[in-house]
């Protein structure tokens, strides 16, 4: 052991410019290393069993790499020589600039703090490294700090609370070998493309990322500050659940976070990226945030794990089936998008962040745009098929209208009969909602109404103008829908569009039938600019059904008459329900122009404590 400590120092020495670990830090470190098996054994079954998140514990922590201190080299050398060799960072990477910066936060970087900072940066890996890596984590989970490194602009991370330790004294948790500076989460602030963001990244290598009172306190601190300053909070979730040893203190910690999630809701954008297990009570924090993204194959979200499910309902189900990325992005609608791996997810998150305003006090961001706002889109003149029963892809319309064909779709695999997502028009972020005629004819059903409603409310809360493309044959009929409560779920979308006060531009591309016409950001719901393409059909219902009701099928020519009368945009236009019938190719130009005008829109609703959306 002393040898290893010596090795630590020896390894550290050749790196010039690094704060050298002092003798004091080397000591407890080696102690901890010795205590690895005990520490793990104690932590893992505890929290794992509680939430049925045993997988979390079983899931081997990601190998620690970037931001590693020299000391870890010596600790992670057992049974993994080839991988470790590849992982060695050349000098610059092992010298993150946080070292200096975090000093500002901590207030002076004396020898003492420097010594404690080293183990904090290592987290649990310093201890677990070698042994756990031997069991081989081939699933590509990055460490908490590596994730932050990729998410934020280089050298922009200012870390908070590096010296915070958990305060549990039971079950031997107070022994120094079970204390990790910083505990199981890394928190701080940084920049994404120059813009401020607050971040927390749970460290699975420390007690499985389990949530202690201190862990929760660290998260709450940055959330409070984010809300005060007005900047988004991004959570990188990778936690086995509650810190069982702390009992109710851990639960209190969750509740503290939940409360802040709720208070921040609509004030600052909150984004959760699930990068490991997230089970039990822990799932409610992501659920309360605005967007939940997942990493395929390594992240899970469930209330109870497969073991508990088996014992209660006798269902055999795998983690992946129960709460994997595929389940939540296609079946449950819990997650908004899934990404291939940690790197893919973090890079996409950076791109996504650029669409968002920092808070509800900020307007939608405007990026430099190279796509001319007066670009005509000739293909739109022919995109709607002449047969009204034939489908087309609403995404084709969206891609061709928005800047540079870039569309960040939200929930692309769930309730695909409605398309929602972010794009830019002449550089300005807009939220796009469109019925998708290609899927289930673009009808509104329970899932698509809820999906649309949540998106519309996000945009409204954060000053993002809404552009709605309408081709909706109506609400989906049937017992499944009625029993499922399509009335109250459909009402959510209606509610969301009606209450929204951001600029609302609507384009009816084809069908706008029945109640669904009203719902889809119609003029009557305070739509600012409502356009119809010449192919639009604004009517109570399709001609066939209408004629059957009016004439009980007795009039032979009635259907033609109905088509003539209502299957076109004019009845709506003469009543002023659409502001203009436009050449489809000019849609982009018009919308860009309208958005410029509407940027100064100001509209208010009667005072209320809050509205009562039909939940």
């Amino acid at each position, binding site marked *: 052991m002393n040898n290893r400590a010596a090795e630590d120092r020896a390894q550290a020495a050749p790196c010039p410019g690094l704060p050298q670990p002092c003798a004091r830090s080397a000591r407890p470190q080696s102690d901890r290393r010795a205590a690895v098996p005990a520490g793990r054994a104690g932590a893992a079954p505890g929290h794992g069993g509680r939430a049925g998140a045993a997988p979390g514990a079983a899931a081997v922590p990601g190998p620690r790499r970037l931001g590693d201190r020299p000391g870890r080299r010596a600790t992670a050398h057992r049974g993994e020589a080839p991988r470790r060799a590849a992982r060695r960072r050349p000098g610059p990477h092992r010298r993150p600039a946080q070292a200096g910066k975090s000093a500002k936060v901590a207030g002076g970087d004396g020898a003492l703090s420097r010594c404690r900072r080293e183990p904090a940066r290592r987290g649990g890996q310093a201890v677990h490294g070698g042994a756990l890596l031997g069991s081989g984590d081939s699933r590509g989970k990055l460490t908490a700090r590596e994730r932050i490194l990729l998410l934020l602009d280089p050298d922009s991370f200012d870390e908070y609370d590096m010296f915070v330790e958990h305060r549990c004294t039971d079950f031997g948790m107070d022994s120094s070998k079970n204390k990790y500076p910083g505990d199981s989460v890394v928190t701080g602030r940084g920049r994404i493309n120059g813009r401020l963001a607050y971040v927390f990244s749970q460290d699975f290598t420390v007690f499985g990322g389990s949530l202690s009172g201190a862990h929760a306190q660290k998260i709450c601190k940055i959330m409070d500050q984010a809300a005060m300053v007005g900047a988004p909070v991004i959570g990188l979730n990778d936690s086995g659940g509650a810190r069982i040893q702390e009992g109710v203190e851990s639960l209190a910690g969750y509740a503290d976070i939940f409360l802040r999630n709720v208070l921040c809701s609509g004030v600052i954008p909150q984004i959760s990226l699930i990068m490991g297990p997230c089970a039990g009570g822990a799932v409610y924090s992501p659920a309360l945030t605005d967007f939940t993204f997942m990493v395929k194959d390594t992240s899970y979200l469930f209330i109870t794990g497969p073991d508990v499910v088996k014992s209660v309902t006798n269902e055999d189900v795998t983690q992946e089936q129960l709460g994997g990325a595929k389940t939540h992005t296609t079946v449950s609608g819990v997650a908004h998008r899934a990404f291939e791996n940690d790197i893919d997810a973090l890079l996409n998150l950076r791109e996504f962040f650029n669409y968002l305003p920092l*808070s509800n006090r900020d307007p939608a961001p405007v*990026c430099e745009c190279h796509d001319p706002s007066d670009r005509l889109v000739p293909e739109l003149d022919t995109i709607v098929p002449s047969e009204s029963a034939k489908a087309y892809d609403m995404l084709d319309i969206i891609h061709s209208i928005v800047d540079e064909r870039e569309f960040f779709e939200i929930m692309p695999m769930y309730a695909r009969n409605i398309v929602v997502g972010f794009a830019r028009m002449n550089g300005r972020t807009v939220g796009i909602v469109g019925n998708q005629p290609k899927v289930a004819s673009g009808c509104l059903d329970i899932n698509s109404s809820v999906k649309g409603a949540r998106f519309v409310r996000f945009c409204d809360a954060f000053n993002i103008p809404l552009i709605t493309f309408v081709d909706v044959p109506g609400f989906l009929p049937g017992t499944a829908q009625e029993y499922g409560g399509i009335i109250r779920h459909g009402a959510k979308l209606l509610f969301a569009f009606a209450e929204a006060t951001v600029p609302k531009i609507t384009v009816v591309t084809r069908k706008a039938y029945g109640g669904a016409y009203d719902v889809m950001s119609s003029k009557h719901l305070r739509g600012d600019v409502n356009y119809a393409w010449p192919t639009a059909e604004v009517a109570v219902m399709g001609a066939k059904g209408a004629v059957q009701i009016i004439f009980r099928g007795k009039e032979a020519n009635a259907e033609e008459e109905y088509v003539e009368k209502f299957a076109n945009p004019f009845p709506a236009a003469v009543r002023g329900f659409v502001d203009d019938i436009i050449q489809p190719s000019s849609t982009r130009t018009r919308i860009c122009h309208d958005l410029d005008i509407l940027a100064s829109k100001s509209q208010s609703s009667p005072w209320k404590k809050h509205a009562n959306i039909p939940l």
Partner: protein
Amino acid sequence: MAAAPLLRCGGRRARLPGWETLYSRWCLITSHNLYSSVYDPNEKTFEKLLIANRGEIACRVIKTCKKMGIKTVAIHSDVDANAVHVKMADEAVCVGPAPTSKSYLNMDAIMEVIRKTRAQAVHPGYGFLSENKEFARRLASEGVTFIGPDTHAIQAMGDKIESKLLAKNAKVNTIPGFDGVVKDADEAVRIAREIGYPVMIKASAGGGGKGMRIAWDDEETREGFRFSSQEAASSFGDDRLLIEKFIDNPRHIEIQVLADKHGNALWLNERECSIQRRNQKVVEEAPSTFLDPETRRAMGEQAVALAKAVKYSSAGTVEFLVDSSKNFYFLEMNTRLQVEHPVTECITGLDLVQEMIRVAKGYPLRHKQADIPINGWAVECRVYAEDPYKSFGLPSIGKLSQYQEPLHVPSVRVDSGIQQGSDISIYYDPMISKLITYGSNRAEALKRMEEALDNYVIRGVAHNISLLREVIVHPRFVQGDISTKFLPEVYPDGFKGHELTDLERRQLLATAASLYVAEQLRSQRFLGTPRIPIAKSKRRSWELSVHLGDEIYPVAVSKHGSSFSVEVDGMKLNVTSEWNLASPLLSVTIDGTQRTIQRISRNASGETSIQFLGTVYKLQILTKVAAELSKYMPEKAAEDTSSILRSPMPGTVVAVSVKPGDTVSEGQEICVIEAMKMQNSMIAAKTGKVKAVHCKAGDTVGEEDLLVELE
């Protein structure tokens, strides 16, 4: 164009502004014609002409009609209701559903349209009814002028057996072979042995490579006979076959002729059409590098002799095979306007469509043989919606999500009948356009072609630009050393795209890396004054890692003003551009070399595909840090669900368009499901053979029900 301001929309018409502007733009574009036949406005001509065709050739004919002041009538199938030719014409009438047999070949419907619209003449274009003597006869019987030769000439030349006899009598060199119809496979073998292998078995009524087989032995002859007769029966409704000596490694050179009804005939020089795949032409040029003036004259005179022998009037093409000793053999005569006629127009300055219309109206030719020049050089590339990496081109279908013709390049002519947003469907020829460049000499024409191909934006469907570009820069092609076997000889293992030299690879890497950095820099630029100031990055250099092919290249980029200095493989390159990230075309100067590249796609994960020197390369660009970490990301085996088609919703199966054993291409419609009174087309997610079909028309299916399995 009185009908222009009318916008078509689902059978209804709404008068809307905006179209005029588009139309006038379009007119501007079409002024690049590269032919200059003078139009005499005092010469009386037809008042109204119907074009019995679609696509680029219909547009081509309409352009000349407009110039001559003739009103035009377009016909179209229902899927073509919004096609360009329909919009260009003064009138348009639907003649039936998508399959050609029910629309563009539907003579009854077309005759009805002619009567209704009172068109005085019909231009058949090429393909479809252009060489159909029955159609010409029916037109004649109703007193409508057919813009083409008379029925007799069509019949004589349309039949390969008869045409060969005629050619022999007119003292035209012909290929040794059997002059009669082959009755059965045994006879085919006997005749083949007499002529000597290899032999060519072809449909008597054929053309365009259909129903054509080459046989090198008895067995292949039997097989070829069977396939060719099947193909001939299905394509032309005529299963008669003939056999002739197959001239190995020949060139395909054809002579354009133009004759009037007064016994005058001219030859308008040759077109070299040797670059072919599966007997279909890909690159054509005029003149040919191979012909000397004597051979040219000999071929031209024989062609004219043949035209006179059949009392030919209108434009026609006499095709010859030319062997390496400049012996030429008559192959066939096409009694129509050829696809590749523009190259002849470029070098002679004649508008062939205009001449055809004049001749059909009964006017004598205005030119003498001595007036027909060879001015400069013209090259034509046929741009197809097809994947050149599979057998030099398997059709691809889809919507042209972006489409921009390279008309800003000087001396470029593009004959096309599609526009951005058009669908390339399975019903018709997958040709996107004909791209023609002209120069004072061959090198100039080829240089412009290179530039034009680089500047051609086609997105949404696979296309053969990469193959075309490789062909026109290949040393053998540049030297003129070509034959009809050029492609299989040059690419024996199939076409694989451009092979980068070391320098080109560095250029590509440097460009891609610069583009990445430009994008990164732009994403930090926000307009307005944000409440929380944006931290300005002072970063001036980037260490990147670029994945190209199987290699990972470290690339260092540093910014100097608007240009980037990029270090790749120990070499420093200077990359300058305007970095307009929205434009589909990007002009980049790399150490003084100008390249036009196209960024086809990009995503947040650093994956990007770039069209460089015609070929699309896939790259992944990551920062050095991300690249180091990406080593730990597990490789994921792609889950293949593309071979199973499930119903995405409950509904009724309206139609199933495949049966087990069929080969379907990616994107092809497999079946149609009606749900909520909407027809949803289910398409194949990959190219393959149909293994099983689990539904039939009329079935009611539930969500996720298995419909079709592919192998």
